[in-house]
């Protein structure tokens, strides 16, 4: 019975099998490096040198403690958390306000303003960095965490506004008008109608910005020099320089930087995808 079933495997089932195989390959290809680094993070460099692709057995979790305390990772971690949280909070509120205004109000030069905000994406980071460096130095924000937060807000704001605006524009105008007739002003409408209704899109931007800024290092390299103000990606870079020969320790450092992102993604990915596809599903 089972055999004859297999013999009569339909073309649809065959295609499905092929597809699954493809997905498995793609996943292995994408996740492979991650798993490899993860394994190395639990092994010593000597072990790795003996067998680069070996399993982490015996494991050396104490390497994490070493990286954390001996290599300033506690400071980097705290800096990253503080800077990313502040930047994401400002981005969310300012981005939502801008999106609300673009989606709801007719005003003169609306197209122009939208255009100007988006025009910033044409400048290659190399050029932006020059200008930002100059600006930061002049305003006394160079080598300061506040300055980095502001830069992060500036570079992520256009895409944040873009994602939110698309969602805000789909909130029916009637809702706002009903709230106006119910006696609420523009400010109250923003906080009590727009924000809660747009929650799926807002979650998306929060997660997206958190992941992107957590990993950001180009601007941080240029704008931060003091070791005690460095974020995690800078810590990893320094690590790469300091411990050039110690592959195992480098892997441990990388894992400390990556694990929070993976956790965020694992817990919130459904919400992220949901918000991103909200347009499609309607």
């Amino acid at each position: 019975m089972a055999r004859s079933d297999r013999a009569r495997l339909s073309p649809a089932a065959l295609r499905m099998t092929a597809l699954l195989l493809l997905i498995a390959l793609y996943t292995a290809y994408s996740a492979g490096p991650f798993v490899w680094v993860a394994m190395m993070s639990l092994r010593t460099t000597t072990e790795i040198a003996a067998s680069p692709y070996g399993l982490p057995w015996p494991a050396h979790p104490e390497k994490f403690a070493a990286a954390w305390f001996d290599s300033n990772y506690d400071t980097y971690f705290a800096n990253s958390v503080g800077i990313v949280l502040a930047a994401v909070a400002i981005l969310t509120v300012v981005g939502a306000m801008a999106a609300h205004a673009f989606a709801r109000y007719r005003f003169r030069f609306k197209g122009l303003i939208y255009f100007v905000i988006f025009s910033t994406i044409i400048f290659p980071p190399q050029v932006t960095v020059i200008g930002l460096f100059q600006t930061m130095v002049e305003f006394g924000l160079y080598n300061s965490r506040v300055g980095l937060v502001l830069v992060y807000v500036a570079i992520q704001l256009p895409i944040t506004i873009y994602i939110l605006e698309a969602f805000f524009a789909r909130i029916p105008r009637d809702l706002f008008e009903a709230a106006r007739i119910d006696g609420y002003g523009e400010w109250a409408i923003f906080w009590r109608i727009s924000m809660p209704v747009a929650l799926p899109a807002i979650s998306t931007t929060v997660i997206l910005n958190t992941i992107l800024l957590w990993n950001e290092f180009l601007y941080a390299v240029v704008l931060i020099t003091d070791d005690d103000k460095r974020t995690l990606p800078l810590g990893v870079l320094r690590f790469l320089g300091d411990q050039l020969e110690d592959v195992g320790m480098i892997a441990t450092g990388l894992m400390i930087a990556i694990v929070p992102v993976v956790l965020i993604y694992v817990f919130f990915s459904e919400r992220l995808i949901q918000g991103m596809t909200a347009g499609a599903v309607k």
Partner: protein
Amino acid sequence: MAVVKLEDVGKLYGGVRAVRDVNITVEDGEFMVLLGPSGCGKSTTLRMIAGLETISEGELTIDGRRMNEVPARDRDIAMVFQSYALYPHMSVRDNLGFGLKRRQKDRALVARRVAEVAEAIGLTPYLDRKPHALSGGQRQRVALGRAIVRDPKVFLFDEPLSNLDAALRVSTRAELVRLHRELGATMIYVTHDQVEAMTMGDRVCIMDHGEVAQIGTPMEVYLNPANTFVAAFLGNPPMNLMPATAAEGALRTGTGQAPIAGLSPGRRVTLGVRPEDLAVTDDPARALVSGRVTQVEALGAETLIHVATGDEKPVILRSGRAAQARLDETLHLAADPAALRLFDIETGRAISREM
């Protein structure tokens, strides 16, 4: 309660006049229906009353107080939207109380009032549901409840029944009439559906191209349309309109005549007659029009017979279910002269008849 008065009100959109010279007085406790085809300005007029659109010209007063510059939230009006506009993230309870909370700080009073209204319109079992978990009829009811809760001076309705299915529409119509009777409130109701207008309105204001075409009770506007637009808009099928020429003591259509005197001979007019005022006659001499049957529509309860008379449009006769007519048969149609309406052929305005 309140008298709503519009004087010479107009609305300009970037230089284009969407609404002009609107003069309407809605009496205290009256149910006024704004009726017209889409784009006639009825919704814009309602939105100007609500304060959702600025008033470009003229004056709006409620109880004698000028409202032009008063923001929507201070006009003490409530509005039921076509889409219902329920807040999707709030429960039915919070939807009902949202407007009240803004004005009434005492939460216990708000809760009591919400419970009271929910009970009255049968929403009590659904108070903790979110709008997406309600049926279309229940959502409509929440929208209605949200308006009632606030006990406003004026209720505004923007096609509130158009998203309901036919059966629900009929029952909600009756319920709104009852509600109006009970609350005795001033209500302004926008619709494009003439059945709603005829059955619900104390008076009907028919609008066309941003202007008021006629205001009157439902039967007034149906029986004595002020112009050909109203005549052709009301009724399903609408009034038959055909050109006619005055002669000595009679009005001649292309294929018959009517004993109407008083017009200067030779004057051309538009003659109107409702499909239900026509009847088949055997006597060609008595016929108002004659012609060949081009279509017979048996609708079940009644039959519509289309008769081609040589004019642009066929004349339609509304008849009972039993009516029989063969295609291409010639019919002579007569009507009581009192049922005929005359309109100026140029302006379309009704001509009053002294006979």
